[in-house]
């Protein structure tokens, strides 16, 4: 079953704009991770935020986590055409033997 649900399902922006994707989940988590998947490729880990953290930055990425609302957001600033990909949130759920439950993803298209 899939826990995380990303919103929007698809997002199209111009190069240089910011992209924001949201993820909602249902259970208690140890951490939440974001992955990127380019077409025809495997997933690449982007960033991990622990359940006791509220915000984390990595380069052009900013992730927030609100455990009271069971939601997270991924912000990509100053987007580039190379950021075009699918983005998935994945939750490490409490009691899950350290497995990840992936959402359905957001397809981001950055137009040059």
């Amino acid at each position, binding site marked *: 079953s899939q826990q995380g649900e990303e919103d929007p399902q698809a997002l199209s922006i111009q190069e240089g704009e910011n992209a924001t994707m949201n993820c909602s989940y249902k259970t208690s988590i140890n951490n939440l991770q974001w992955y990127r998947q380019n077409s025809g490729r495997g997933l690449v880990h982007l960033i991990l935020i622990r359940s006791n953290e509220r915000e984390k930055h990595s380069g052009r990425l900013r992730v927030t986590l609100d455990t009271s609302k069971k939601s997270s957001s991924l912000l990509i600033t100053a987007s580039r055409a190379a950021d075009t990909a699918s983005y998935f949130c994945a939750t*490490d759920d409490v009691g899950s*033997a*350290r497995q990840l439950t992936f959402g359905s993803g957001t397809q981001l298209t950055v137009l040059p």
Partner: protein
Amino acid sequence: EAGVAQSPRYKIIEKRQSVAFWCNPISGHATLYWYQQILGQGPKLLIQFQNNGVVDDSQLPKDRFSAERLKGVDSTLKIQPAKLEDSAVYLCASSFNPGAYNEQFFGPGTRLTVL
């Protein structure tokens, strides 16, 4: 550092045939995962190994799917017989230690088409 290797990259078979996928995880990674990713969806965990033992195979359709991890390193996933709904990308991932942080490293996947 070499990444997770998978083969083949693509496979086309007819329904009721059998197929096998191979995965070589990153050296030293104790935990290995197989996922099924249907087009337009996120990956769904099929089975998780810790070294050569199965941690969780609750979502593996055991009437047709089987998996093993040889000597705690390479792994194979087999489907026999295949159904049309098995058409998907099969992803292998590994992680060093599912302790504090379980960042997973993914292979490129095997795209299976069942006709």
